[in-house]
């Protein structure tokens, strides 16, 4: 293959002095890997949650007392049904069951299997025979985290719950929810609504909160106002609020990212300083010599630009690819706990690969531009001085 002398010399400088570059590539790679991993995890979680958002109710109505959520009366359901434009009013019964032995908790969710939507969703998970079998006795569907936890503690086939009334309630483990749904179902125990009430100690006339839909988006504000005016202790959460909450949690502008960015910025400034001072000290004589041997300022800048560009591209591609491998192939061990927590049941979630090209290109530019500048500015400063002075 024919190569130009310039390209040949660029390669000579780059590969023969690779020791000089390996350190900076390695540090950049670690930074980009960390940043890439965090962004991959967050965009994957947000993508998955946004997909499920379509199945979520438009509104959730709760009762609050002294700023705390308390159970709502079922009488509210009838009041809500009277509001024009509201559909699919569903009472929700859920709560956390504390597994005292290991100080863990499960989320018990009661489902009305007679409800049309719930029934339809259940059929997506099991066939007709299983469904009949499931509805016959006290059975539960559990998330993978719960299943593993119960197995570890010698409850492979079911669990005996202690209700607040002091009664033991044995519930069979009917099926484990698919691993792919771990993101929302890991600590979930799905039981018939009556059973959930019993375990959670809720009365027949109580629900945890009420979910409802308002098919006409334009009416959302009106309906929210109307519902809020019903009772002094009513609290309405809209789907938009949920979206915002997810944004708050996993947006690159907030949460854990601010801390990560801070660390990255400090490290990056150190790299830039190292590059800047390296050009000024060890490369000063080289630049002066090249100039003395007939290289113009433009030639020297071109050489340094391409050399730095190679470092940037190598570090970026390797960093991002490693982050991809770590997050989407290995499942981001350790780091995912920062996002999903590690205080309760371990969640071995499958993260769906999502690449946000906007963010990736921003990282590239945020990394590449200061890095290239940190080399080109001192190079230019040295190159414009007389070669004799630069070579001193």
């Amino acid at each position, binding site marked *: 293959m024919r190569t130009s002398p310039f390209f*040949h010399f660029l*390669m000579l400088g*780059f*590969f023969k002095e690779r020791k000089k570059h390996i350190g900076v590539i390695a540090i950049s790679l670690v930074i980009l890997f960390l940043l890439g991993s965090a962004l991959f995890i967050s965009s994957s979680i947000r993508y*998955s*949650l946004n*997909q*499920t*958002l379509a*199945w*979520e109710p438009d509104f*959730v109505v709760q009762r609050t007392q002294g700023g*705390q*959520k*308390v159970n709502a009366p079922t009488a509210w359901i009838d009041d809500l049904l009277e509001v024009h434009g509201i559909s699919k009013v569903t009472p*929700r019964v859920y709560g*956390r069951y504390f597994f005292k032995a290991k100080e863990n908790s499960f*989320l*018990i969710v009661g*489902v009305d299997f007679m409800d049309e*939507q*719930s029934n339809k969703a259940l059929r*997506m998970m099991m066939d007709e025979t299983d469904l009949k079998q499931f509805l016959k006795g006290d059975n539960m569907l559990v998330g993978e*985290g719960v299943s593993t936890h119960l197995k570890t503690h010698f409850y492979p086939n079911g669990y005996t719950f202690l209700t607040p009334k002091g009664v033991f309630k044995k519930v069979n483990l009917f099926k484990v*929810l698919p691993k*792919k*749904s771990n*993101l*929302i*179902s*890991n*600590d*979930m125990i799905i039981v018939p609504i009556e059973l959930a009430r019993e375990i*959670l100690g809720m009365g027949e006339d109580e629900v945890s909160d009420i979910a409802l839909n308002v098919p006409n988006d334009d009416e959302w504000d009106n309906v929210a106002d109307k519902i809020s005016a019903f009772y002094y202790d009513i609290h309405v*959460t809209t789907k938009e*609020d*949920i979206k915002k*909450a997810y944004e*708050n*949690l996993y947006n690159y502008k*907030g*949460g*854990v990212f*601010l*801390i990560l960015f801070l660390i990255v910025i400090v490290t990056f400034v150190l790299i830039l300083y190292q590059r800047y001072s390296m050009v000024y000290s060890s490369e000063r004589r080289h630049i002066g010599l090249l100039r003395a041997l007939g290289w113009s300022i433009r030639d020297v800048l071109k050489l340094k630009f391409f050399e730095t560009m190679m470092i940037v591209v*190598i570090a970026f*591609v*390797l960093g991002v*690819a490693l982050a991809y491998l770590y997050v*989407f192939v290995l499942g981001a061990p350790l780091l995912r706990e920062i996002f*999903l*927590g590690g*205080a*309760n*049941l*371990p969640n071995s979630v*499958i993260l*769906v*690969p999502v*690449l946000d090209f906007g963010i990736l290109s921003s990282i590239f530019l945020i990394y590449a531009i200061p890095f290239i500048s940190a080399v080109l500015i001192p190079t230019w400063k040295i190159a414009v001085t007389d070669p004799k002075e630069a070579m001193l």
Partner: protein
Amino acid sequence: MAKAFYTVFSFLFLITFSVSIHYVATDRVSATNSLSAVAGLTRMGSLSLSVAYYEPRVQRIEKANNIIYPEMMSIDRMDFVYEN
């Protein structure tokens, strides 16, 4: 030295290509379907955060009181089951 360049950049290209293949070939539909089935059944799509019992599991109901760390709720929260 040009050989080293072509080796390094072929390697980078190979990595990028493998990532692209993995990205394109991943089955997103079945993962989404599983999540949708659970969300549809329970009408709850909230994230299964592995939080301690004194921290809120159903996140969105509360308003974060710390913008830097939205997961951190006020210390008086005790919403595990018997607290209700």
